[in-house]
């Protein structure tokens, strides 16, 4: 956790430094990107590049912690949009991970679980 905090502070300092260094001196301002435009249509989206860099660092840390090969992580992060990075960063634990355990533990076991649950809770109530 303290590693992550250090990382966040580091990224923050670096981002601010880059932003301060980069734009005025060269004057090569880019146009406003399509993704930024789309995000601006969402009222609560944070459009700052600093936040985007933090989200990216957070997702990188989580993927490493979850056993993803560090050598492949940049390629994965590069295909994600800022809003997807934000979703992954803020809801990583809540997002469903499709992985089907049926094939491994067997249909019978699942039926047993379901039958057990029938007696305990109302499983057919949809949420």
């Amino acid at each position, binding site marked *: 956790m303290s590693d992550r905090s250090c990382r966040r502070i580091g990224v923050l300092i670096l981002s601010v430094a880059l932003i301060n260094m980069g*734009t*005025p001196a060269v*004057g090569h*301002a*880019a*146009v*406003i*990107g*399509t*993704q*930024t*435009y*789309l995000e*601006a249509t969402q009222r609560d989206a*944070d*459009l700052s590049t600093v936040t985007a860099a933090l989200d990216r660092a957070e997702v990188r840390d989580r*993927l490493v*912690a*979850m*056993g*993803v*090969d560090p050598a*492949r992580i940049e*390629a*994965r992060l*590069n*295909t*994600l*949009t*800022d809003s*997807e990075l934000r*979703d*992954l960063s803020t809801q*990583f634990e809540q*997002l*469903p*991970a*499709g*992985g*089907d*355990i*049926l*094939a*491994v533990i067997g249909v019978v076991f*699942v039926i047993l*679980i*379901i039958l057990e*649950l*029938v007696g305990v*809770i109302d*499983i*057919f*109530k*949809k*949420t």
Partner: protein
Amino acid sequence: MCSQARWTSAATIVALVAAIQGCAGRGPVIEPHLDAAAPRQIELEATPFFPQREYQCGPAALATVLAASGVAVTPDDLTARVYIPERRGSLQPEMIAATRGYDRLAVVLGSSLDVVLREVSAGNPVLVLQNLGVASLPLWHYAVVVGFDSSSDALILRSGEDDRKRISAHRFASSWSLARNWAVVVVRPDTIPVTATPDAFVAAAAGLEAAHRSEAALTAYRVARDRWPGDVTALLGIGNISYAAHRLPEAEDAYRAVLAVAEHNAVARNNLAQVLLDKGEPDAALSEILRARADLSDSRLAPMLATTESDIRRALATPAPERPDKRAGNK
């Protein structure tokens, strides 16, 4: 007394069995979702099948829809892109993002079953997320819908180790709604899925642009513009990709096309000002950026407009002879 107790327990068993069978007897599920002219039974038999390895239905299902769209790919190629070992599964944002690396569009569909049936009828296998467990004990699973049969009220899936899984429409609808009706089709960038909304299609194109797949994104924006001529995002995307490729006249045309349909669009006007500046027309650029700032309703974008304005004012303060060759490399 005794017979009443027996009757009650018999009724309970019947009710329980009915419940476990997925509330049979509610009438057909598929038929009400079909138009009069739609086929009643279809199966996309040519859709490839990749049996999943343990837990890896994400890579297997994704390979199925990617391969169906013409990409030579196997689940093993995708494991490193979407599989998360400790979660023993794959997350939806990464499933979508992985398609971009192959210059494909992953378009998120609407949440009604008729959308899925229409896409399958049009030849597009549909990637879906299901919850095969219950709400409180989820078993998340990716599968691909490749067919349906209205007469037996069943869907046909590529699912797990099963190359042709028949599932009752009741059970499918229930497992799919427990996964918030998530459905995606994967298409070439020049193809608009039959049920895609302009917003969903253009958002998918913007995802390709964000992943630096510029040519594929440009193709998608252009077909979107041709189908939905007033779509602001498609036009803006064409402008931005053209600008990044230093094609200033095309970029200018695209930004002006946005302003023709949405004259108060401050983003397009900011970008137009930038193009004019790059073309060596700082006076025209200044009048555009001032108008953009007046039109801007979203304060989060104000710093970006301020940067453009200060660049323009700096150019205006620079002696004129220096201007022309400043951007010589751009055009």
